[in-house]
């Protein structure tokens, strides 16, 4: 009894890498390399034409880069499952690849140890990361998102209202404008400004505006 082979397309711009991968995969009788693409455009064309089970995708390719190819593949309604091959596990990139529909990530220097196992796991509907099948993808995505989130914005002890005042100052508003915007008196605006100057160690509105721009000191929900 012979099961249908798993049909694989390799997408990498380096011929030596493609030849190496193809030959390594050939050892497994259940895997058949049906195509080799030199860039993202070829990878997309081959996936549409050959409808492989698995696309092995290098992220750093010319023309259409791997991540863009992945985005197009996912949006294209193809059943091909993508495994990302990378030289460096960068968490932000892994998160993006998974969000775009990648099913696994394999380091290029772990190909011998993990690639065929990864292909089999992905064909069984699993995800693969860090050399293992993923048990709980949602948790992994949460963890990655937490690890790649930007550091909390420094507010230098300013209150939410003071941050809003700073925002209006950077837009060139006068005290009168600010008072009108918030429905408060100009005296209150002045008091806010005094507090802001003291907290930030600036002496005037221009210094404040420069400080705010340099330190990205805008309210969280500021719409630019």
């Amino acid at each position: 009894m012979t099961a249908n082979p798993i049909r694989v397309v390799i997408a990498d711009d380096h011929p030596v890498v493609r030849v190496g991968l193809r030959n390594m995969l050939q050892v497994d009788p259940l895997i058949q390399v049906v195509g080799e693409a030199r860039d993202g455009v070829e990878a997309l064309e081959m996936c549409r034409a050959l409808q492989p089970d698995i696309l092995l995708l290098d992220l750093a390719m010319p023309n259409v880069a791997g991540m863009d190819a992945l985005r197009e593949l996912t949006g294209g309604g193809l059943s091909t499952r993508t495994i990302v091959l990378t030289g460096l596990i960068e968490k932000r990139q892994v998160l993006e690849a998974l969000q775009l529909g990648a099913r696994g990530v394999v380091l290029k220097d772990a190909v011998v140890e993990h690639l065929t196992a990864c292909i089999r796991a992905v064909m069984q509907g699993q995800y693969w990361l860090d050399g293992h099948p993923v048990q709980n993808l949602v948790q992994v995505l949460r963890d990655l998102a937490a690890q790649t989130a930007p550091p909390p914005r420094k507010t230098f002890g300013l209150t939410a209202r003071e941050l809003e005042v700073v925002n209006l100052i950077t837009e060139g508003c006068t005290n009168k404008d600010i008072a009108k915007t918030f429905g408060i008196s100009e005296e209150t605006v002045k008091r806010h400004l005094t507090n802001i100057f003291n907290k930030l160690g600036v002496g005037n509105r221009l210094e404040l505006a420069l400080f705010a721009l340099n330190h990205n000191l805008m309210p969280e929900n500021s719409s630019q």
Partner: protein
Amino acid sequence: MCHEKERPGPESETHLRPAVFEQLRLAMNSDPSGFLELYRDYLAEAWLSVQALRVSIQQRDAEAVRAKAHYLKSSSMVLGAAHVAQEAAILEEAAAGGRFDEAAARLNQAVLRLKQVTARLVEELGREVDPAGITAA
């Protein structure tokens, strides 16, 4: 009775990872000249990358350095030249950060590692695998 090859020590293992080399040799058992050609092509391109890297570092062309270092890293990883891959990875990072002095130093290290890989491959596959004649000197 066949003679078993002496097992390489840990240091030389990382010059050329036996797991990778032997799996490829096994996979290409029916095509030994293709196997030789694969490693010959790798070395030829790696030495060309080294030359291109020297020029790009001198020209302080960060993008060119990064791209060439990435190429060297990628092919070295897949073919088991672990030390070359490590040096290329650091070189790639140095280029991305515009640290050209560090990149130049790393390139020298990569060259040393590449010589070691070349020598190891010559031991395994003969002088034909050495396109640049590095080991002839």
